[in-house]
C-alpha cells in the first residue's frame, strides 16, 4: 500500500514512499542518547508551536 500524508507546509498530498533512500537498522541501545537528544529538540519545537514556550526575538542584521 502506498500511503500519503498532507504536507503541513504546502497542504499538498505527499507520497510517503521513500524508495531509493538507504535504510539502516541501528543498535537501539547505542542510538539511545542520540534519539533522546533529537526528541528533546523536537519537544522544544512542539512547545514553541503550541505557545507553551515563547521565543525571544531580537532583530539583528539581515542574513539572507
Amino acid at each position: 500500500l502506498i500511503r500519503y500524508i498532507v504536507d503541513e507546509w504546502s497542504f499538498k498530498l505527499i507520497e510517503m514512499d521513500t524508495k531509493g533512500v538507504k535504510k539502516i537498522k541501528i543498535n537501539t541501545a547505542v542510538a539511545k542518547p542520540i534519539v533522546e537528544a533529537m526528541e528533546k529538540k523536537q519537544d522544544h519545537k512542539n512547545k514553541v508551536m503550541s505557545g507553551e514556550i515563547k521565543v525571544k526575538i531580537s532583530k539583528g542584521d539581515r542574513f539572507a
Partner: protein
Amino acid sequence: VIDLHDSYEVFVNESDLKNDEFEYFFTTDSNIVYILGFSNASYLFRTECLVCSNIFSFTFYPSEQKGQYDPKIKLTIIKTIHRFIELYRCPVIYVCDTSSSGGRGRLRLFSSWFNEYSKGLFLHDQRIFETDYQQIPLGIIAAVSDSNFNQYLNEIDSAWMG
C-alpha cells in the same frame, strides 16, 4: 538561484544563544514568525571524526500554529540553508520529525525541494535509520566542493550501528 522577490528577508536573531548555535527568523505576510536554527551536530557523530565536528543541524518552525499555504516559506528556508553553507563552509543535517509518521513524507518533500533548487551547487543525501520501535529520517546538504561529503553519513552509519 532563488528569486529574492519570491522569498522573505531573513534576519539574525540576536537573543542569547550558545557559541555553537545560530538562529535566524523571518516574518510572513500573515505576520507569522518562523525560526530557523542551526546548532552543532557533533552529538550525531563519534568524537574521532574530526571532519564531522563542523557539521550543523538545521531545524525550522513557526513561533505559533501555522497559517495558510505560503510558497514563499519554502523558498526562504532553502535560501537560508544555501546562504549558511556558503558563508560558513559547513554541511547541514536535517532530522525529520521522529514523533509522527509524517517524517518520511517530509524527507521526500525536502528531496523534491533540493532537486528543484540546488542547480548543481550542492550535494545531498538521505538515510532512514530504524530502531526496533521508530524511524529516524535525516538528510545532509553540503557544497558541491566538499570532498568529505561521502564520509559524513558513513560515519553516522558506523556510529549508530554500534
